[in-house]
């Protein structure tokens, strides 16, 4: 070979090496992996979460053009599997996502139990593990370094409710607590009890019921006998519906009635019709909350993501049905937004750097405020309380975000 050709070829080869090495630093896509539960007990929440994630990813890719890393804007991609709400499937699917699909970040499966199941594996691979459906505070006392929470803590669910009621009617002090006996229900009850005592409430009734209950009559008869002014309780949708219906059946009239996780879902009112009138519930997000770019700017917060209407539209497209997004979808979507901001701030796809960056940012989105503490727990986001008034869900608390005023006392069951 002639000397010059040899030299040119070497130069070309070197150039390619450098070029590919440089390009190899930044992948074509940022992949989010998700071992979600699409069948089994968590199916509904999982389905919603997947829809919410798809909606936000679409927004990021089309409106923002991708995530800004260095000079490039890299689009997001999404890979998810069905762990069937089973813990043992979570670990194997999680590892597959990490090692075979080579995802960059992970969204945890819905529910505290499933989130915990995957945590050791995520920790081992040092990959960021976004918790959007696990409200247990204990997740954050275990010393995991890569878990970032977007949903709020269970213990805070009824705190705002009690504040609202105390303000409205400080004289009515008789409080009944009746929660589902599972991790979530118990943590809400714990928080509610502690806060109620601080506010000077009289706890006249405190019971839990098993998760798979189909008749609450014995418990509710006992509750009726304690003549409470306010009833707080619940667990999830099925028992929430049952609770309300049987309260109505037994004719238990109270001044206020608030259940967790069930009331604000459209299925609740669809099933109960007039019986839902006046029933309240705390939530992390409902259609109708008034978080906007303007509000964020006024509060001096960064804003990212679609507006509420845009989110709803993208969600329906992603799911392929005319289904309303519920809070599960919003939580998951907001988690993706936080991830985007974290990557951009860290200017890197390394989980450790992104996690550190997430610890320093706060922002607002269609979901509301967001900010974590050093253990990864969500401390920035506030819950809202919503109440059914007729067939409309009205946000009644906090006052700054309210779309209507509280109907108090609650209209009687007929």
């Amino acid at each position, binding site marked *: 070979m002639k000397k010059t050709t040899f030299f040119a070829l070497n130069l070309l080869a070197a150039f390619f090496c450098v070029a590919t090495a440089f390009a190899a630093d930044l992948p074509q896509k940022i992949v989010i992996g998700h071992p979600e539960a699409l*069948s*089994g*007990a968590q*199916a*509904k929440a999982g*389905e919603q979460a997947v829809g919410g994630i798809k909606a936000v990813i679409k927004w990021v890719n089309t409106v923002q053009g991708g995530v800004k890393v260095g000079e490039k804007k890299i689009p997001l991609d999404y890979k998810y599997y069905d762990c069937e709400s089973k813990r043992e499937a979570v670990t194997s699917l999680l590892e597959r996502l990490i090692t075979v699909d080579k995802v960059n970040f992970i969204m945890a499966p819905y529910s505290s139990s499933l989130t915990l199941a995957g945590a050791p594996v995520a920790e081992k691979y040092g990959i960021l593990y976004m918790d959007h459906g696990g409200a247990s505070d204990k997740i954050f006392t275990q010393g995991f370094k890569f878990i970032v929470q977007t949903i709020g803590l269970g213990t805070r669910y009824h705190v705002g409710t009690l504040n609202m009621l105390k303000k409205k009617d400080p004289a009515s002090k008789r409080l009944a607590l009746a929660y589902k*006996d599972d991790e979530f229900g118990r943590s809400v009850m714990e928080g509610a009890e502690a806060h109620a005592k601080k506010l000077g409430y009289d706890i006249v009734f405190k*019971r*839990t*019921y*098993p998760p*798979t*209950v*189909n*008749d609450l*009559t*014995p*418990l509710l*008869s*006992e509750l009726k*006998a304690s003549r409470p002014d306010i009833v707080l309780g619940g667990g999830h*949708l*099925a*028992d929430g*519906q*049952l609770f*309300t*219906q*049987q309260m109505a*059946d*037994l*004719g238990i009239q109270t001044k206020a009635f608030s259940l967790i996780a069930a009331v604000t879902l459209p*299925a609740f009112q*669809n*099933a*109960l*019709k*007039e*019986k839902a009138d006046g029933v309240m519930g705390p939530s992390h997000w409902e259609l109708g909350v008034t978080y906007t770019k303007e509000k964020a700017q006024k509060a001096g917060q960064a804003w990212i993501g679609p507006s509420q209407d845009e989110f709803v539209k993208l969600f329906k497209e992603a799911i392929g049905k005319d289904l309303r997004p519920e809070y599960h979808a919003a939580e998951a979507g907001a988690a993706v937004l936080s991830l985007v901001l974290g990557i951009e701030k860290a200017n890197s796809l390394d989980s450790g750097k992104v996690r550190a960056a997430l610890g320093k940012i706060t922002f607002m989105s269609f979901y509301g405020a967001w900010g974590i503490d050093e253990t990864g727990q969500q401390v920035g986001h506030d819950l809202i309380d919503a109440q059914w008034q007729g067939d409309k869900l009205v946000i009644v608390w906090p006052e700054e975000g309210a779309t209507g005023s509280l109907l108090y006392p609650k209209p009687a069951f*007929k």
Partner: protein
Amino acid sequence: MILEQLAGNLFQGVVLGTVYGMATMGLSLIFGVLKVVNVGHGAFIMVGAFTSFAVFEYLGLSPVFAVPVAFGIGMALGMIFYYSAIRRLLKGPELASLLATFSFGVILEEAVKQLFTSDFRGFNWDLGKIDMGFTVLPYAKVVACLGSIIVALLLYLWFNRTRAGMAMRSVVEDSVGARVCGVNVDWEYALSFSLGIGLTVASGVLLTMFISVGIHPYMGGEYTLKAFVIAVLGGLASPYGAFFGGLVFGLLENGSYVFFAQIQGLEPFAMTRFFSFLILLLILLLRPTGLLKAK
């Protein structure tokens, strides 16, 4: 005060118990005739619950009309499942038929999930209620209770007064002898199985008259467990036993709540569940053929 609560609970327990009992009759019938334990029992109740919901929501008719519809659906499902699988498994190990019935349950759950999504449905069938002083009873529950009693009576009449029913009983007593008498044993098995499933699905409708919310594809599991306890209480092979077992169960569960509520540091509701399973074990230990005298 406690006595009033106890009285109220016991009363509600009896009313609920009739529905539970009727829901278990199918299970006992299938076991009595075919010696097959229908582990997918709860899923069939779920199908009945969805039938009731669909009839109310999409046809605007009261759940009473859903009962015969559900029964028909149940008989059809029963025939399909019998001829596709159960028939071939009757001579095999019990394990096989257990697993087969369980798989049927899973198929139903998933199919319903695809059709209706995993969302929780419900409807409002309000007929008003009676205030009885120590407790309040909605009329819908009364209808459910009466419905269960009527179905149980009809079953009794069928078994004892019709040729078809007697043919079925003959198969239980002596299948070889029945064959000799010209009874088509295979057809009787198919019929019994379908009848059992039909009863179970229909009971799902009655159950929604009692509790018309919380209807979702995976609601059945809880009912399967309860049904086992009730079936054993009444004697595993006797449908009438199941009915009375249901009554006893309703009384025990609700009555024991008041008792457990008096003890500090316990969760009365979970304890009533524990109590019902304890009774199950005691019965199995002392009187495995159930509380009633042998049929």
